[in-house]
């Protein structure tokens, strides 16, 4: 940590400065000191040979479930933060739907302490929006923020009460934090996969697109009323995208994310009652995949976030109705997005880094997501051309639940640096 570090000979891709070309990066005191060609590092500098590799700002994931406390059989802050490192993430935001939920300052403090001890990626806690995530009374948001919470959310469930959502969008403005919404109309919910012909053939209860887009539409109206910052989690439906496009046109403070799985997988994956493809919001149709992809390219959807949702083998090895929702995403996110977006030529590598690092930092007000001198030295070194096969047995995550086991992905993270320290190095 104290020794300067020179990343030499790589291709620096930093969309925040419009950089894409060969350069060295010098890190000192946990911060970026310089980016340029042929930097002569100080004599005592450690040198990391980055030739043939891309050097980029570390990835930022504002939506992960680390399961601690209460779900340590699925994931812990330790295992989750190391899974994140292996996926190239230098910062993750942890959702508060643990058991008990993160709805008081002591719980926020615990998360930060546990994260520091884990020495993995940086973990930033998201506080519960309502006490016990019951959707009734607001938490002490000021206290949560003081303890280190960076946002509030009832994710896992929506903030369902329209009045509470309004108050949240108003009250959070004092603290400058967003409300992260899991958009799902509970009166239209109750399904286990996307509503449509596949669900009909399988005899499984469906979750219609409108279950999501109704709440997106409602919440956008509330932002227009209140001016708060709404961030819509895991957008999956074409109709939601249409609402978000209108919100952007009006210049409202509405941001949103899409997961890697919603950018490439469809409800066809559920055939054979494949519980690994059971996720909420559900995998939808080609038409929806195209809509969210185009929205991400157009900037209607701002960022990619994984919604990393680890579950054990036993939990997924059940009848489809009983298996929990969720896909383990941290370690496959970059490679899957490369395959979905960059390989087919729809987005440049720089564009992908923008949506996985720079934009998350920008919309959430973080000082990372850039290699500008003075910024924290959160860096990922990756080989964008490396092909690899997803083998869940190799996951650092405590769980192995993924519908893309055996898939060939392209683009692999080889080093992850947090505050100038090499915390992950692929063997």
């Amino acid at each position, binding site marked *: 940590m104290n020794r300067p570090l020179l990343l030499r000979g790589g291709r620096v891709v930093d969309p925040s400065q419009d950089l894409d070309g060969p350069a060295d990066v010098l890190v000192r005191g946990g911060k970026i000191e310089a980016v340029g060609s042929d930097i002569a590092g100080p004599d005592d500098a450690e040198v990391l040979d980055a030739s043939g590799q891309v050097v980029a700002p570390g990835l930022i994931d504002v939506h992960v479930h680390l399961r601690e406390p209460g779900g340590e059989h699925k994931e812990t802050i330790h295992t989750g933060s190391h899974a994140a490192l292996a996926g190239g993430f230098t910062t993750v935001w942890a959702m508060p739907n643990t058991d008990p939920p993160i709805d008081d300052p002591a719980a926020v403090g615990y998360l930060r302490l546990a994260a520091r001890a884990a020495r993995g990626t940086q973990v930033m806690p998201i506080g519960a929006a309502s006490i016990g995530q019951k959707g009734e009374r607001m938490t002490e948001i000021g206290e949560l923020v003081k303890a280190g919470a960076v946002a509030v959310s009832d994710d896992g469930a929506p903030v369902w009460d329209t009045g509470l959502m309004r108050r949240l969008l108003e009250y959070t403005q004092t603290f400058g934090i967003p409300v992260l919404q899991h958009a799902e109309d509970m009166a239209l919910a109750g399904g286990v996969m996307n509503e449509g*012909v*596949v669900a009909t053939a399988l005899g499984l209860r469906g979750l219609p697109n409108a279950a999501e887009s109704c709440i997106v539409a409602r919440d956008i109206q509330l932002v227009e009323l209140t001016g708060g910052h709404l961030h819509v989690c895991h957008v999956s439906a074409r109709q939601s995208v249409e609402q978000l496009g209108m919100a952007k046109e009006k210049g409202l403070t509405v941001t949103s994310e899409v997961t890697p799985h919603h950018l490439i997988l469809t409800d066809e994956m559920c055939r054979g*009652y494949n519980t690994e493809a059971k996720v909420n919001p559900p995998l939808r149709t080609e038409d929806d995949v195209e809509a969210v992809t185009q929205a991400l390219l157009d900037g209607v959807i701002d960022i990619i976030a994984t919604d990393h949702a680890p579950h054990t083998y036993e939990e997924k090895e059940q009848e489809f109705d009983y298996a929990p929702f969720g896909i383990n995403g941290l370690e496959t996110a970059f490679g899957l997005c490369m395959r979905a977006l960059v390989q087919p030529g729809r987005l440049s590598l720089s564009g992908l880094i923008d949506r996985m690092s720079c934009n998350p930092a920008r919309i959430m007000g973080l000082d990372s997501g850039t290699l500008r001198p003075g910024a924290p030295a959160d860096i990922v070194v990756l080989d964008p051309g490396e092909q690899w096969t997803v083998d869940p047995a190799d996951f650092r995550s405590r769980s192995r639940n993924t519908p893309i086991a055996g898939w060939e992905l392209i683009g692999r993270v080889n080093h992850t640096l947090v505050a100038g320290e090499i915390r992950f190095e692929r063997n």
Partner: protein
Amino acid sequence: MNQARPEFELGKDLVGLEGLSGATITGILDTAEPFKEISERAIKKVPVLRGKTIVNLFFEPSTRTRISFEFAEKRLGADTVNISSSGSSVVKGETLVDTARNLEAMRIDMVVIRHSSSGAASFLADRIPSNVINAGDGQHEHPTQALLDMLTIRDRLGRIEGLKVCIVGDIVHSRVARSNIFGLQALGAEVAVCGPRSLIPRGIEELGVESFNHIEDAIEWADALNILRLQLERMSTGFIPSLREYNRVFGVTRARLARAPRDTVILHPGPINRGVEIDSAVADGPQSVILPQVTNGVAVRMAVLYLLAGGVPGGAEAAKQEIS
């Protein structure tokens, strides 16, 4: 869509009719024919499955399907055990796969499973080497019910190909509807559904199924109506306002049926809600094949058991003569 495959192909299990060829389904129906006669004998037993052990694993209450399977098994000479969820370790929290593996460890040959979750039968079939027969999984499939429906239609009208069959009622929640759609289409019939839109699943037209909003139109169109039972809880869960109104709008009444351009065949998988989805005059009338369906149910299940145990279509006649 099913490819027209000329040969009979039945795997280890019967979890659904989706994906089965017309030849396979015809093979099962043809195999049921000789078995019909066994149930008419004074001594209703042939030793085709002698020494085989079959477990009827019912996680959901069922009377007629369970009894029909049990008769079929016993008339073929198999040893059977019935397990219902209330009397098993399921209530102690044992998983489905563990229950099945424990049974497997006792060296069984076949499992007949009824379960409230769609996909439970294929879940089990993928995890144990025994033959698995789906006796109804959630809202997915109930293949032997559709087979007996088709056998009954064929008995009455002499063919399936080219017929128009309309399934009436609660399609969303019906495994009988799905199995009938897949099976009838494989045999070359046209399939439609009729009911309130709140009980018709989205995307059904992509399965090649037409939808009628009015029962009168369905009656006008169809050669056979398969009328589903309307579960009473559909009212409390808000799918329809009342049973009374359902009967007034969608009930198959004598007056409505009298305007049919042909002698429409009336099927119902039972149990009947008289005066709700069907009037007594229709259920008990000359066009009704509701009781022949029940009789055929035993023969169809005998055929499925026989075929999964290694029998071949066309071999049933010889098999039952051989030792009886």
